[in-house]
Structures are given as structure tokens and as C-alpha cells.
């Protein structure tokens, strides 16, 4: 039996003496959203990190159950808002798989181009935000300069700058804007020219390297057991690029390398993302002059009906593996939808990666996980 004072002691949540419990978030400059971390500190050293979720839960999975197979895709742009195109693509692929729709070549290539542009834009934003977490404000403006060009390209073709709804089952909603090729080529030239600025400002900076090298290490075995994917897993040497393992759309006809690193620390995750941007540029360069002529959308029925059964598709977003799992009863709306979001699994490894390090290291580790909170909560 507890005496009354002991019970009170337990409910305060403060453990043994010398521990300090801090709430990082839900409003905090480093969490980039409404993530809530309860951190137990011993001085400056972190003993335990406990992520609390649910502040931006909009029950997207439940909403999708009442929307038909054309409508539900639009909601998914609001999950991982930095890879809106790739979310849509995953859903479209899943529906196409269920209905066995043959997507025209042109649409496939357009999808890959858009997905890679999105990946670059997402990594650019991440780069700026992570540098900001480490206390350097300036890289943010430099990365946004290039990201702005991509959002302009998106705006012309898709009509939106952030939550794009462009990919539908059977292809894409509209054809490309006539300036698309010209503008993408301009962007590629500018990006290649300016990428050295990040190298000067961030990669080769002594303080930056000291802050990230050897920080937040995760071994390949742990990365697999926590379900990490995307650049987080690849920085630990886990082969996990779905564009290579299970090519979808037009990824089987382009040449690119899966970027791997074996160090598993924050700096490796940084390097993997920077190199991934260069690989995305490589893919874009291969496809931009070879967009096949033809339809941009397959001819589909006005009302889509998935046959009874379970369907799963997975794609590589900027953050890792996004899985879409649809259970259909044969009607016009899904019976159940489940999204496997990359951010959720990556966040679960945070305690393992950052426990025992300093508060500053937590920001360096969390920054390189590239968390998008609406993607984790959905």
C-alpha cells in the first residue's frame, strides 16, 4: 500500500532526485510542428525521451473511409505536406493495382518527374530547417531560393504550391504546362551551380561537423528493428530505396544510384540527403527531354469500384517508405485504409538515438530525422 505522500510523488512524474523533466513542445522552435517530447534530464544530459503524439490528429484514415476512390487522394496531400505528390502517387498506385488500370507512359514519366522535384523541394526545406535547429539561420534563405523555383513550377502545372493534388488513378489530372520543360531545365542548371554554396556554408563548416559527426548513431540492426526507412535507414547502411527494390511508374527506365552511408550518425544522414538531391537531379535530367507523347490519363470509368480484397502499395517519399493499405468490400469507398508513414517509425527511434547525449545533440538528431508532424499523426 502507498501512503498518501507516496502516491502524490508518483503522479508528479518526476523520478529520482537530480532529474529535471522538460516539455519540449507542443510549441517549441525545434520540433517544427506540434510534436510534444517529454524529456528527462540530468543536468544537460538526456536520460529519456518520450514523444507524445496526437496534437494534429485529423483522423485522415477515418475520413478516407467515407470518400470515394477519386476523392480520398486529395486528403492525403495533407499528411506529409512536403511530399504531397508522392502521397498521391502511392494512393493512385494502390487503386490502379486493385482495378488493374494501365497507366499511359506519358503519365508515368510525368509522375516520376513531379515526385523527384518534390523530393528535392522537401530535402531543401529540411536542409534549411536543420541548419536552423543547429543555430545557423542563413542556410534557410539559400535553400528557399531554389525551393521557390520548384514551387513556381508546381504552381504552373498543378495550380498549387504546397498541397498539390495532381496524381489520380489512371494518370495525372492535367497535362504539363507548356513552359514546364524550359523551367525545369533552368532549375537544374541553377541548382547544380548553387549547390556548392551549401557545401561551403554547411558541409565544410567545422562547427557543423563537430555538432553532427558521431551524434545520434543508430546501427543497421537497430534501424531495421525500429522500422526506420528512407535516408535514416540508408545512412546506417540499410538498403531500402524502394525506387530500386520495387520500381514503380517509370523508375525502372532511369539510371540512378541508391545513396548509402555506413556511419549512421547525423552527419551521414545529412550527406545521404544532399547526395539524394543530386541523384534526383540525375533522374530529372534523363527524363526531361524524353517525355513520351500520348495521353496523360488512362480512360477510366466515372465511378471507380475496387474489387473485394486487400491491396497494398508502397513508394519512397522524401522521408522513407510510405505504405497504403486498402481493404475493399467492393463498393465505391474503401472499407478501411491504413497508411504506414515513414516519420512515425523514424520518430520511434529517437529515444534510442539521443538518450545519453546533450540537449544540443537532441536537436541535431531530431533535425536529421526530418520529421513532418502531420505525417506522424495523420
Amino acid at each position, binding site marked *: 500500500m502507498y501512503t498518501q505522500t507516496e502516491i502524490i510523488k508518483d503522479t508528479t512524474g518526476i523520478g529520482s532526485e537530480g532529474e*529535471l523533466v*522538460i516539455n519540449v513542445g507542443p510549441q*517549441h*522552435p*525545434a520540433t517544427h510542428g506540434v510534436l510534444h517530447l517529454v524529456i528527462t534530464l540530468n543536468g*544537460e544530459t538526456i536520460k529519456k525521451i518520450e514523444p507524445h503524439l496526437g496534437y494534429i490528429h485529423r483522423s485522415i484514415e477515418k475520413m478516407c473511409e467515407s470518400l470515394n476512390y477519386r476523392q480520398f487522394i486529395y486528403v492525403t496531400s495533407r499528411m506529409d505536406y512536403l511530399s504531397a505528390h508522392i502521397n498521391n502517387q502511392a494512393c493512385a498506385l494502390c487503386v490502379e493495382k486493385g482495378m488493374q488500370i494501365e497507366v499511359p507512359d506519358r503519365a508515368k514519366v510525368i509522375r516520376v518527374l513531379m515526385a523527384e522535384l518534390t523530393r528535392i523541394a522537401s530535402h531543401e526545406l529540411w536542409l534549411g530547417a536543420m*541548419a*536552423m*535547429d*543547429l*543555430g*545557423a*539561420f*542563413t542556410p*534557410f*534563405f*539559400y535553400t528557399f*531560393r531554389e525551393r521557390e523555383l520548384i514551387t513556381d513550377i508546381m504552381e504552373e502545372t498543378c495550380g498549387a504550391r504546397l498541397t498539390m493534388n495532381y496524381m489520380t488513378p489512371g494518370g495525372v489530372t492535367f497535362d504539363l504546362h507548356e513552359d514546364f520543360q524550359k523551367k525545369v531545365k533552368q532549375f537544374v542548371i541553377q541548382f547544380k551551380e548553387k549547390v556548392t554554396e551549401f557545401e561551403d*556554408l554547411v558541409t565544410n*563548416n567545422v*562547427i*557543423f561537423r*563537430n*555538432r553532427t559527426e558521431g551524434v545520434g548513431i543508430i546501427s543497421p540492426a537497430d534501424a531495421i528493428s525500429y522500422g526506420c526507412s528512407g535516408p535514416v535507414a540508408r545512412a546506417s547502411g540499410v538498403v531500402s530505396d524502394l525506387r530500386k527494390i520495387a520500381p514503380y511508374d517509370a523508375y525502372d527506365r532511369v539510371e540512378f544510384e541508391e545513396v548509402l552511408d555506413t556511419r549512421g550518425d547525423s552527419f551521414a544522414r545529412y550527406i545521404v540527403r544532399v547526395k539524394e538531391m543530386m541523384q534526383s537531379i540525375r533522374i530529372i535530367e534523363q527524363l526531361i527531354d524524353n517525355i513520351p507523347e500520348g495521353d496523360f490519363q488512362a480512360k477510366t470509368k466515372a465511378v471507380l469500384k475496387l474489387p473485394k480484397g486487400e491491396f497494398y502499395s508502397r513508394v519512397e517519399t522524401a522521408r522513407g517508405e510510405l505504405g497504403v493499405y486498402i481493404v475493399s468490400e467492393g463498393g465505391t469507398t474503401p472499407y478501411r485504409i491504413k497508411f504506414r508513414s515513414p516519420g512515425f517509425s523514424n520518430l520511434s527511434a529517437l529515444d534510442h538515438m539521443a538518450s545519453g547525449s*546533450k*540537449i*544540443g*545533440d*537532441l*536537436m541535431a538528431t531530431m533535425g536529421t530525422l526530418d520529421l513532418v508532424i502531420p505525417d506522424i499523426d495523420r
Partner: protein
Amino acid sequence: MFSLESITRSIHHWLYGNMTPTLALLSECVIIILLAIALFAALGLVLVLMERKVAAHIQIRLGPNRVGPGGMLQTAADTLKLILKEGLVPDKADKFLFNLAPFLVMMVAMLLLAPIAFAKGFQIWDINIGVLYVSAISSLSVIGVLMAGWASNNKYSLLGAMRSGAQIVSYELSAGLSILTIVVLTGSLQLSEIVASQENGWWLFKGHIPAIISFVIFIIAVTAETNRAPFDLAEAESELTAGFHTEYSGMRFALFFLAEYINIFIVCGIGATLFLGGWMPLHIGHWEGFNHIMDYIPSSVWFFGKTFFLIFLIMWFRWTFPRLRIDQLLNLEWKYLLPISMFNLILVTVIAILGWHF
């Protein structure tokens, strides 16, 4: 050569000629206090605007350009907003210490103004232990920061204050040691004499490599002492939201903010006085013509030019580097800067004894 010395001297003579000595001294005090407050206000406005413009230039954007011509009145508008804002005091804060802390920080900044020679003959208090006074008083600002962090009853503030305590106390050492090298070379603690000793060349150039080393260490140490990035761990926005002044708002926050900029000005002023010759014009050896032209530039322009150059340098750091981690910060001081500056001091002593400097 235009000089403020004649103005100050004529005021001094006029006051002592027309009043009793006590009254004259008192009225001089009043004039100086008014001038100091005016300088503080002007510096606050200029430095904040300068920081924003420098940051904007480095970050490929324009910076404030809406309020007044070229955004000149932006800081005035911000100050007005801060004055009108409610100054909240947290519920369980130590109210007395919480209110006292910003004034203490501000007071330290004001006291440091005393021994600085702004121009030829334009110095509030030419104390004979000027250098000692500066290093002694500048250590006091940590008390205000600790007080603010402790009294706020906020865990972020507490962490920020503790970081700041460790940081300022550590970096005080190498700042002091690098100042000492100039004292050894000059043989005087009086700031006016240190300036006078640089008539034929600044210590940065006269003292060979050791002077350059101590100048670099001085700049690093004062950047840390004034809590500026990359050493802004006490504030560390992405880690501790705002560190020791998390709970401060309104005018109390403005005082912390202003004190930061005044402190930058003062440490840069001292740096300019010790290493760059204070108000002394740039003289090169026996180039009589060149030296003569340089003499035509007023001494106040020289002093403020040098000081603002150093301020620009410190702002440049802030907008280029990421922040250090607390253990790296202390490692840098205790494992690198302190041993180097100690060795450097010995080297300078040898140079001074053997008379190897120019």
C-alpha cells in the same frame, strides 16, 4: 584637425569659472548622464537596425524597408511596441529578483561606458586602472543573467542561466589574458595611455604575431561573453526557446535586448582601443604625407569606424556559424584558448622585456 577636445575643455572651464567646484562637478555629472543615456538610445536604434540590415544582406533579402526611409524608424517602432506591451511576471517567480535582473544587466553596461575614450579628450573617467576596471565590471553581468534565469521559475530559463554562468566565467579568463598582453606591452593599465602608446602604430601591427593571436582570442572570447552566436547557448533559440529571458516581456525584455547590443558596442570599443589604437589615426612609419592626411580625419570618426568594423565582424559570425554544443564550448576555452593565451602572454612578456616590438 577637428577635435571634440576643445568643446569639452571650454565647457569644463566655463562651468568651473561660473560655479563653485561642487556645483560644477554635479552639473558635469548631469551632462554626462544625459549624454550617456542619449548615446544608449542612439546605439540601440543604430545597432539593432545595423544587425537586421547586415543579416538581410548576408541572407539575400532586403531587411526592414517600410517604416521610415530605408526602414530607419523600424527599431523606434519596435521599441514603442515593447514599451506599450504588458510586462508579465510569472506566478511563482521571485518578483524582486525578477524585476531587478534586467536593470542590473543594463547598469553593468552603463558602468562600462565610463573609461572608454570616444575621441581625443572625450573620456568620462580616465581611471588609472582602466583595464582592470573593465574586466572587473564586465564580469558582473553574469549575475544579472543568473538572477533572471533563477527568478523566472522556468526550467528553460534555469538551464540557460546555468549555461551562461559556465560560459561567461570561463571566457572571462582568456579575454582577461589577451587584454593583459597589451598591458604588458604598454606598461600601463590606463586606457588613455594605452591609446597614446599607439601613436606611431597600432598594437595589432606593432606586437608581431603574439598581438594578432591575442586579438583573435579577444574577439572569440568577447563574442562568447556577450552571448552572441555561435556562443549564444544561454539563449539557444532552437534548444531553450529563449533561455534566460524566456519569461521576460515588454520593457524588461527590451532592457535585456538593449544591454546585449550596448555590451557588444563596449567590448568592440575596448577591442578597438587596445588593439586598433582607439581614436588614433592610422599612421605608417615615416610616410609623412600619408600620416598628415590621416590626421585630418576626426578622432571620433576613427574610434567609431574601428568599433563598428569589429561589431560588423561579430554580426558576421552570428549569421554564418551554427551554434556550438555546451561541452564543445567549454572544451574550446579550457583546452585551446586558455593554454594558448597563457603561452602567448609569456611570449609577449619576453618580447616586451627584450624590446623586440616596434
